[in-house]
């Protein structure tokens, strides 16, 4: 019988959302449209329309040594062209943001190729070749893994994950990179490191509280689904905790 990955334990909606995001055969729902130019503006690594700067000559022009691994592992488009390595970083509010730092890394490792994620408590950075990054960032912004109010694209000064939301429902941002307009649409007025943009970039309307609760990937006993409501998840966590604690004493499962 062929191996079928489980992705994660749990019977709650949070557990199911986590599995959906990780499972590459699950098609993430597209909720908003951003253009390629919008993504380039928010990332701020190069001017829109400019050619991709390169870090080395294209692989086709290089004399590569004979190596069976190179035949097995095909390079991504960015690697083929010799693009620079650039990054996108997301800060996710613990108030039911649709994705969370660890979850992002798991999901991206299953879905994307040639990436180098860095996971922290309140933010997650992913590095890869610039050409690939534009595609990955676009997918992360357009789909159900993003919410304009509770997720921020922040390269620096990222504080906000663990803070209460503002009155208008936006996650705190010391640099106020995105602003909720009177028409209810969130617009990025600065790029991810805080440099003002020539034009505002629309990322759509914030999702409502009900949608966020149904699509969240974080357990939260006050505003979302509590971990104690998912006994299967608790059993899994306790098993991992027990085995980790006993590790070094030759643990044997009974």
């Amino acid at each position, binding site marked *: 019988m062929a191996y079928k990955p489980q992705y994660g334990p749990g019977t709650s909606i949070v557990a199911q959302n986590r599995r959906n995001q990780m499972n590459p055969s699950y098609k993430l729902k597209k909720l908003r449209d951003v253009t390629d130019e919008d993504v380039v503006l928010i990332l701020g690594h190069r001017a829109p329309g400019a050619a991709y700067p390169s870090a080395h000559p294209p692989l086709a022009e290089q004399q590569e040594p004979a190596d069976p691994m190179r035949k097995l592992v095909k390079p991504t488009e960015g690697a083929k062209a010799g693009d620079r390595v650039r990054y996108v970083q997301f800060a996710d509010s613990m108030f039911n943001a649709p994705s969370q730092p660890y979850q992002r890394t798991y999901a991206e490792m299953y879905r994307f190729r040639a990436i180098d994620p860095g996971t922290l408590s309140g933010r997650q950075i992913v590095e890869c070749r610039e050409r690939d990054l534009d595609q990955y960032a676009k997918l992360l912004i357009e789909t159900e893994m993003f919410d304009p109010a509770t997720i921020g694209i922040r390269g*620096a*000064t990222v504080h906000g994950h663990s803070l*209460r*939301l*503002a*009155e208008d429902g936006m996650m705190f941002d*010391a640099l106020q990179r995105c602003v909720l307009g009177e028409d209810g649409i969130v617009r990025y007025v600065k790029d991810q*490191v805080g440099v003002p943009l020539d034009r505002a970039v629309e990322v759509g309307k914030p999702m409502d509280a009900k949608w966020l609760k149904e699509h969240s990937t974080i357990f939260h006993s006050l505003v979302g689904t509590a971990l104690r409501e998912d006994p299967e998840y608790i059993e899994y966590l306790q098993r991992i905790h027990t085995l980790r604690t006993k590790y070094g004493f030759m643990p044997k499962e009974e």
Partner: protein
Amino acid sequence: MPESAFPQCRIVPLRLLSPQTTEGLLNRVTGVSGVRRIVINGPGLPAIVPYGPARGQANPNTNRRTIQVCGAEFEMKVQTGTVTLEVEDESVITAVQEMCDAFFTKIPYTLQKGRRFMKSSPTLVDYAKYGPKANELIIGLVDPRKKDGPVIIPIPTRQEEGEDCQGISRQNIHQI
């Protein structure tokens, strides 16, 4: 805790407050007679970008605007998270609670009481920083890392006492 220390309480709304709401709240708070000192806590809103490639650039932020409380104008340097009050006696806390019940209609809030939320007497560090003749009213009000002092709002705290001073200070919470 010294016996002479005044009671304190802390208003904690469920959301971080905008400058407009903060202005409304503080005007109501200063309207309650018997409030001695007020401290606003919350995450900082830097005037310039502090980190990263854009470091040093101006950081326009609609939440960093000037508000007016009982005629005194000052710029919000934090987004209001909590408002700590030092009051004359316990009956003022009850009045503050009634005021908050009427004010917070859209978002829930908690009024914490029964313990101390800011310094009420000078410590060794205050002595080193402000010297032996420091005004005790500013103890616990001013962020020691900031150069600006508290805002003094001249209002009568008790009708029979006439004019008194009420200090509002802003304090930064560090980024984690």
